[in-house]
């Protein structure tokens, strides 16, 4: 259950709709910060004046457990002085004196630590954009929906699960609005209004006589959307062994299916370990992409900046420079895109004033690029940042964070049914489960929510105790087919973690259903 975020205060649902600071005041405070920093000797400065609004609605069976509305407002100033980065932040202030002192503190930190630098920070040039703005396309603002309508929805979801075989159900709505004002000494004043939503649940079924339990989590995706994600029309649904969702999510229908499936999981056949062909649904593949491609191609990891915690990467410079490193088969094309509508990473500008864009990471199976920000791109021989710098709060320093990294759909027309028909011995995996990968992103293990055995081109019932273990390069080279764009859907996470102190990042990963041949499957059942 989420706690009230650090440095946030609780507010009423109505206060979430109140306007933040007037933009003219934000500009004035931003100029105070930039001027104070440069007056103390900063050669570069940026400031974020940001307001973060969250609403969590949490229920369990027939009870509303909690409704939390939070607001967090503050100012973060980042500078370069004596060639070294410095950062300081202060919450809940609109005072010009406070903002100036915060900027001066950032400069003092930079100067105190510059003796530990070998060479000065090298920042890629960035033109100023003047006064500009961007906002998520919102059809139905989450905070305008009465709380009662939200609790009614969740209690109906729980009721549907309980009457279809669940013993327990927890359901939650997370709704987020980031109101972020960025200004820098490059001459940008960028005002952005970013919305996100994640409806989700966990259904549990218990067999009291055997003591066994099974869970089934929702097949929703967190999205860079607002409450309109909970409106569905038939074109958003893909029917098959279970219904999967695209631009709209039918929570009630999914909870009904989940309860029935959790009971079936209790009696499912335990998997035979060995080599299997895998058919992976986008609700599952997003996490494998996130861990094995998203993190591996972050330039700060490749360079060693994350060596002490998140780790480094196997996708080293020599592999990129060779222009022939087979990250995957020819079917495998990955692109980074901070402009995909509805995605979690979709913004107009990143947190260091760079306009967002789309670029290739892996083309026809070959590693062609990384994800980089302004103080790194020179190491790629480039002069322009790729625009993927982000901080999770006004109180934290921005750094390179993962862009939406997605697997491009196959070019030939192919449906999921046609793909399954071709498989002799396989497992069709839907939804994300347990996940773990090494610190250089070679060896991984993934579970899932639903596992269906495929025998001679037909679905032959449910399996349990399934996890697959592989190596990134071997796995993506075993990708033999990707369904076409009609099947393309996004999954994602609110909780991509990196950095010390740890920060979170919201990121989406799109794909169409894909087939991988001869993957090593484990049986995870144990007797104690």
């Amino acid at each position, binding site marked *: 259950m989420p706690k009230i975020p650090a440095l946030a205060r*609780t507010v009423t649902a109505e206060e979430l709709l109140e306007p933040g600071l007037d933009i003219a005041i934000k500009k004035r405070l931003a100029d105070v910060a930039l001027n104070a920093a440069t007056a103390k000797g900063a050669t570069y400065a940026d400031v974020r004046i940001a307001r973060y609004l969250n609403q969590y609605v949490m229920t369990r069976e027939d009870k509303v457990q909690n409704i939390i509305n939070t607001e967090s407002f503050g100012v973060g100033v980042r500078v370069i002085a004596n060639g070294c980065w410095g950062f300081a932040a202060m919450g809940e202030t609109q005072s010009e004196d406070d903002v100036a002192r915060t900027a001066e503190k950032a400069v003092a930190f930079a100067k105190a630590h510059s003796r530990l630098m070998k060479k000065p920070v090298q920042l890629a040039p960035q033109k100023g954009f003047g006064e500009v703005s961007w906002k998520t396309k919102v059809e139905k603002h989450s905070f305008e929906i009465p709380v009662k309508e939200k609790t009614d929805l969740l209690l109906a979801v729980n009721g549907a699960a309980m009457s279809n075989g669940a013993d327990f159900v927890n359901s939650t709505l997370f709704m987020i609005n980031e109101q972020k004002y960025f200004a820098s000494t490059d001459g940008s004043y960028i005002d952005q209004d970013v919305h996100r939503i994640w409806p989700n649940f966990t259904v549990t079924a218990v067999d009291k006589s055997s003591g066994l339990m099974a869970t089934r989590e929702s097949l929703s995706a967190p999205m860079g959307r607002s409450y309109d994600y909970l409106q569905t029309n038939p074109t958003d649904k893909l029917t098959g062994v279970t219904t999967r969702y695209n631009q709209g999510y039918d929570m009630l229908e999914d909870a009904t299916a989940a309860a029935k499936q959790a009971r079936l999981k209790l009696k499912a056949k335990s998997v035979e370990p060995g080599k299997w062909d895998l058919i992976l649904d986008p609700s599952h593949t997003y996490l494998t992409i996130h861990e094995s491609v998203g993190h591996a191609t972050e330039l700060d990891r490749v360079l060693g900046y994350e060596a002490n915690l998140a780790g480094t990467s196997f996708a080293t410079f020599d592999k990129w420079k060779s222009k022939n490193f087979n990250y995957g088969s020819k079917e495998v094309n990955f692109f980074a895109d901070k402009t995909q509508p509805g995605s979690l990473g979709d913004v107009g500008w990143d947190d260091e004033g760079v306009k967002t864009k789309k670029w290739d990471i892996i083309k026809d199976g070959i590693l062609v690029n990384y994800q980089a920000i302004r103080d790194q791109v020179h190491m790629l021989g480039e002069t322009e940042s790729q625009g993927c710098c982000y901080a999770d709060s006004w109180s934290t320093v921005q750094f390179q964070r993962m862009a939406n990294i997605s697997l491009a759909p196959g070019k030939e027309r192919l449906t999921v049914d046609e793909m399954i028909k071709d498989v002799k011995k396989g497992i069709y995996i839907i939804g994300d489960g347990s996940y773990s990968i090494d610190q250089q992103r070679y060896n991984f293990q993934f579970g899932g929510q639903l596992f269906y055995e495929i025998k001679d081109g037909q679905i032959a019932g449910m399996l349990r105790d399934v996890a697959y273990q592989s190596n990134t390069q071997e796995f993506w080279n075993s990708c033999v087919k990707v369904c076409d764009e009609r099947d393309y859907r996004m999954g994602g996470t609110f909780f991509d973690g990196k950095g010390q102190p740890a920060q979170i990042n919201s990121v989406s990963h799109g794909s169409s259903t894909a087939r991988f041949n001869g993957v090593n499957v484990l049986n995870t059942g144990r007797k104690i």
Partner: protein
Amino acid sequence: MAIILTEAEAKALLTKVLSYSKADECEVNLLGEERGNLRYARNEVSTSGSLINKNLAVQSAFGKRVGTATIDEFDDASLEKVVRRSEELAKLAPENPEYVGILGPQQYVKSSGFFDSTAKITPDTRATAVDKSLQLSREKNLTAAGFLQDNYGYTAMMNSKGLFAYYPSTSVNFSLTVRTPDGKGSGYVARGYSDFTKLDTAAATRIAIQKAQGSAEARAIEPGKYTVILEPTAAVVLLENIYFNMDARSADEGRSYFSKSGGKSRIGDKIVDERITIYSDPTNAELPASPWSGDGRPQEKMMWIEKGVVKNLSYERFWAQKQGKKAIPFPNNMIMMGGNSSLEDMIKSTQRGILVTKLWYIREVDPQTILLTGLTRDGTFYIENGKIKHPIKNFRFNESPIIMLNNLESLGKPERVVSTETDRNYLVPPMKIREFTFTSLSDAV
């Protein structure tokens, strides 16, 4: 007003807040803290930061309707406003059938977790401590990435039934990864203390350097079941998954390892080797912790697993009342008792085995058996005929810490360690375990 209040200042402020209350019950939580950090990589500083945080949370209740409001300004008008707001929120809230009311006055044991040495750290102190580490790695032509973070602050609470609690504390965590320039060797060290004077960054750095140099040119051996010697840093990330599962409600509801068929829990069952005893104690001098939980319940010395038998599970107050049990709070620290073996003894007595110094990316695969997966990292070594023979490539494992503690060979002396998964500090001994399950090889260094 200062960020860090003394006990008398906190008491006066909380008394004032409660004087504004018109609710049936009112409880106020107060905290203040200052945090600072310095991060480095590629042998130079990368980022640094500081943060000041103060917060007051008021919970008001009318019957079973509860509302909470928070504020970080402490003038009289703001304090009264936050109390009124919590009362308004309570009146609007649906009844919470699980609200059991606030506690009356409690007695707490004494625990000393505040050290001036840590409270007085400045950006310059951090730079000096990190410089000692950087000098050593630069001298050896190795690449260092590390993080130094310190915190000092206090928490306090008071309620309308007369409960008052106050606890000041400090902490400092230092972690470091040293790699060889060719990327073939990597070593790690982490240290956590309440008292900054105990932190010797140079001594810690020498350990990481030794592991980095010693782990280069690792050879691959076949995955399978091996006798392992787990250093405390490796063992702790497995053990804490047992700790996090020790909740009575999920056990009673049939959805955890601590459930038994027929709707019972495993309290009273012997689940691991009889040499395993795990307890919590806020007064432990090595690992001091707050003597009260967030809702004001006293933290006492508590046995969780004694001689292999489950003695207690933690209870939410509602669940304890419903089940007619004592409402034991989730502990603020965990201590595993050790044995007499030294790490050297363990290696000497091993004919064929593996020394694991760190584990990474631990995730639960099956909650009913606490089956975990993850990988070895930053120094894994092959032991043959009582000696470390050579470094080996990293493995992925799939193992349950419950099975592991049933396969116990010997235990060493407990030491304070930092979990690389959660940053929490624990007291954990090194341990020798037979038949630990490695399932595949990893090329990661």
